[in-house]
């Protein structure tokens, strides 16, 4: 192929940048400064490149685009294969944008081992972009699991006081999940004889096998999402992670699970997906109601937002398994929206944490009188989080619920209670932090957003409103791929029914 390998470039550019940063020499201050600037430029360029993927994307076809193929481990039939379709494409600009924001958000708050920190983030960017564009099972596995290494380091080295416990928990959960996924991949391999994802997506696995494979993948994805009851690693990981770590964790890593369902569970195991959908709905409903309630009781801002993430991802899983255009598109939009909004909310926490070094809600109050710009940024993301029409959160939630209602009105009603509860915990949080009289010690001189912080929030605010008011460009991109996926599932449903009828 003579075309420009844009996916490989987007994937590996950050890694090249990381290598470059490792070469920086000089006094510790110089190294830190150069590492920051290099990371910023690399992430900016990567983001610009990734936008060209979007610009050149043909949204009329459900096929994989920008495909790249190279023999890798030829003897074993493993190929280096990249490509994106309407489901995966938008996650790449999301990842590259959030990486820039992470670099900016860590500009002043990270002062130790800056070089290693930036290397970890750029390496992670490579893994994440690679995960979304991998079209080979083996390659996917490497990227999917590989992300955890930098994330580990970020929590473990730059994390808070309980980082040992948190990282340990993270480790146990994910390991349990990925062992099962690995077994499933082996089974897929032996059954289909290929590791090519496009081929596997059209391969018809025997129904008896589908259920087991589905469950094995589910174990891994459910931990990632995370779904109730395997969510308890998330609040701890967030609390201990540095701000940018939380941003990338909430913004991109959680999407791995949702993406995994769309890329593997639905197309490869449609019959099992249909059969087990009620089980997913059940878990999603519990996730939404349970974690929303738990969020209401939190005293730590980061924990509250972490729990709200679980609730919002409950919408994603519920929408995915409706197999309706609205449910699926809603799930994807909800993931993109949550990527922006929860990332922004962690940044919002980070802003005051950097100033006051406390995550406790009780140590704040009345910030609006000293920090009006902060208050309005917080307000926008709070509203997006509660799904107010005109913000990105609404588009995702309403589409998911429209889809879910067609499958089960009762399930939709139960999930929709999350909308009321979500408003309750977010408004309650906002009131305790932003409104009221500013009386707490140390707050009297707190400063409003700096220009750097405004630069961090401005693009996020614009995107949240843009997707909220004019989501058509986003929805158009995924339209064809989603329709294709649904017709695949419908075909499977049809033949399964025919089999049963016989």
């Amino acid at each position, binding site marked *: 192929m003579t075309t420009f390998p844009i996916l490989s470039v987007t994937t590996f550019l950050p890694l090249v940048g990381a290598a470059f940063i490792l070469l920086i020499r000089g006094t510790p201050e110089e190294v830190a400064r150069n590492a920051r600037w290099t990371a910023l430029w690399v992430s900016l360029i990567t983001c610009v490149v990734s936008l060209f993927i979007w610009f050149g994307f043909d949204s009329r076809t459900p096929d994989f685009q920008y495909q790249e193929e190279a023999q890798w481990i030829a003897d074993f039939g493993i190929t280096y294969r990249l490509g994106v379709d309407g489901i995966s494409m938008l996650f790449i600009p999301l990842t590259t944008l959030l990486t820039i924001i992470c670099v900016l958000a860590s500009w002043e708050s990270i002062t130790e081992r800056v070089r290693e920190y930036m290397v970890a983030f750029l390496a992670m960017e490579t893994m994440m972009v690679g995960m979304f564009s991998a079209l080979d099972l083996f390659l996917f596995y490497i990227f999917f699991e590989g992300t955890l290494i930098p994330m580990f380091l970020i929590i473990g080295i730059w994390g808070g006081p309980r980082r040992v416990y948190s990282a*340990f*928990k993270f*480790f146990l959960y994910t390991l349990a999940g990925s062992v099962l996924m690995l077994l499933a991949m082996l089974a897929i*391999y032996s059954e289909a004889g290929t590791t090519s994802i496009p081929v596997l997506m059209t391969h018809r696995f025997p129904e008896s096998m589908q259920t087991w494979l589905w469950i094995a993948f589910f174990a891994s994805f459910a931990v990632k999402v995370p779904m109730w009851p395997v969510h308890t690693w998330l609040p701890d990981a967030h609390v201990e992670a540095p701000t940018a770590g939380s941003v990338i964790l909430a913004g991109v890593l959680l999407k791995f699970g949702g993406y995994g369902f769309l890329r593997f569970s639905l197309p490869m195991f449609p019959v099992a997906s249909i059969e087990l959908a009620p089980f997913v709905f059940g878990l999603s409903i519990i996730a939404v109601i349970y974690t929303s309630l738990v969020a209401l009781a939190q005293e730590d801002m980061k924990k509250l937002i972490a729990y709200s993430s679980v609730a919002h991802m409950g919408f994603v899983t519920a929408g995915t398994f409706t197999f309706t255009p609205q449910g699926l598109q809603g799930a994807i939009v909800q993931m993109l929206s949550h990527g922006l909004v929860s990332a922004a909310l962690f940044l919002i926490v980070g802003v005051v944490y950097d100033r006051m070094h406390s995550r406790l809600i009780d140590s704040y109050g009345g910030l609006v009188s000293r920090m009006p710009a902060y208050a309005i940024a917080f307000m926008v993301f709070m509203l997006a989080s509660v799904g107010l*029409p005109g913000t990105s959160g609404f588009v995702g939630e*309403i589409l998911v619920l429209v889809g879910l209602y067609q499958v089960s009105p009762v399930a939709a009603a139960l999930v929709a209670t999350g*909308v009321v509860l979500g408003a309750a915990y977010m*408004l309650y949080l906002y009131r305790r932090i932003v409104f009221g009289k500013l009386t707490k010690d140390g707050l009297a001189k707190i400063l409003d957003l700096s220009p750097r912080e405004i630069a961090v929030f401005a693009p996020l605010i614009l995107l949240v409103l843009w997707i909220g008011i004019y*989501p*058509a460009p986003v929805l158009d991109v995924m339209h064809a791929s989603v329709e294709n996926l649904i017709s695949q599932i419908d075909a499977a449903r049809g033949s399964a029914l025919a089999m049963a009828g016989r």
Partner: protein
Amino acid sequence: MAVAVVLLPLLGGLIAGILAFATPANHDARHTVDRLAQYVTCAAMIVAALLAVAVFYDVAVRGNVGTDDLFRWIESGTFEVSWAVKMDTLSALMIMVVSVVSSAIHVYSIGYMHHDPSIPRFMSYLSLFTFCMLALVTSDNLVQLFFGWEGVGLMSYLLIGFWYEKPSANAAAIKAFLVNRVGDFGFALGIFATYLMFDSVDFDAIFQAVPGKADATMRIFGGEFHAITVVCLLLFVGAMGKSAQIGLHTWLPDAMEGPTPVSALIHAATMVTAGVFMVARLSPVFEYSDVALTVVTIVGATTALFAASVGCVQNDIKRVIAYSTCSQLGYMFFACGVSAYSAGVFHLMTHAFFKALLFLGAGSVIHALSDEQDLRKMGGLWRLIPVTYVVMWIGSLAGAGIWPFAGYYSKDIILEAAFASGTTVGQFAFWVGAATACLTAFYTFRLLILTFHGAPHADEAVMARVHESPAIMLWPLIFLAIGAVTAGFVGYSAFDGEGADRFWGEAILIFDSHPALEHAHHVAPWVKFLPLSLSGLGIAIAVLLYAIRPTLPDAIARTFPGLHKFLLNKWYFDELYDMLFVRPSFALARNLWKTGDEAIIDGFGPNGLASGTLNLASRAGALQSGFLYHYAFAMLAGVVILVSWYLFSRLG
């Protein structure tokens, strides 16, 4: 042109919003910024109002109905929604009422908020609020309606909590948003049900498809239900929240924590009328469900009486008027419930004028009394603030439904229609409505007398500072007073008289089998006179109790302490909800967290496993190396297994 009406307040609001961030160097610069924000928002609003009048003429009189599609919003499968501005008589009327009343409130706010440090922010909120309401009433689909619906909810949250340092204002703001969200939850389900049924959320498509689905059923909780009834009831839950009907009304009286112009804006022209508007807009759907209409009637009538009964004993001047709003909205709903939608909308319009007048008048009183809101500390003001006194009289007469003021005409036609509907619930609504008319007149005049007559109860320092409001506040009052006098007899024939059919065009559908409005014009004379005389009776009682024998009210309260406390505490709704929902939610939340997550899931899951593997881990060294090493090892092992499996299956 209609598009401009909707967008002008948005533009004004955004400009004022940007001005709110200006940090002027000195007092004069601050003043200039404030002025600029006021001028921009008021100018945008007044131009919008003038355009709205022109649009109304164009649409309602010359019949130029139509829809302007702006751009696509959400499209997924057959779920297609656009941003649009729909114009028919109902929308045109609403944008006119909303923008005209809102203009008056904008201008009034210049005077009322004079001393406030955040003027640009306030003006911005007012304009954005108006924009959301305009987007709501001009929607051509349920989802944009929902945008406006939630939008006014948000803006009211911001406005009620405008004085953010007051804990009570914050609590009221959150309460308003949450109670509305509960309603919106129902509304959203209604949208989903509509889409499932009609495969569209556009009004025109829905209305066309309704006849074909008249007998369709829907399966919920294992039972078969009449689908249109389900849809209507779900949507009506939203209307109950937004229009503060019994059960979901608790936020409205608390909303009085906001600045008074906000109360006028929320309670007169916008937001609370959204529910009534929605039912009228969806008349082609509600007509197909007698059950839904019956529910609407009962809820409306009950709210009318309940709120009026509470209004009789409240001591905060704004709370009395707030309960009055609840009660009047009840009238509008039971009008819709007996298929007299146009009567409901008519009352919505007259009410917009006299209620905005009453609130702004009350604001003028509060302003004069140095922010005193307690009726027991007022009295003897009428000579001191004569203009306010006169306009309050006009507002009160209109509110009490005395001929020839605006409220008389609209309330009259509603009660006649209820009586003429020929149904049992219609009769119920009529009698309840008539009794409520008596209570309405009573509390309205109680307020008037306690405020302006009798001996002054404020202390001398306050009384010495009592002054009439500035002209910038009085002119809007006079303007609204003219509306409160004339809106009734000017509108009557077009809305519900001879020209009604031509006037409404296709905006409202009424079945021939629901002839309440037809028959309303032919009811026995006593049906007309009974409410009017009951109103007179209410006024007489108020005069007796508060002007002639001022010791009597306390004596009555002492004689019936239970009843008095019951009313004073607003039928204990707040306490009930606190006990049923708020406390259990927080208790459950803590339990799920501490027991569910920490004790059960973590206890048996990771922590349980952890204690088993911790040994291993500690031997492996520090975390960074230890777990990473384990992890990488596990991954490598995975790769090895993968490769070996492959080799075995190939070679073996």
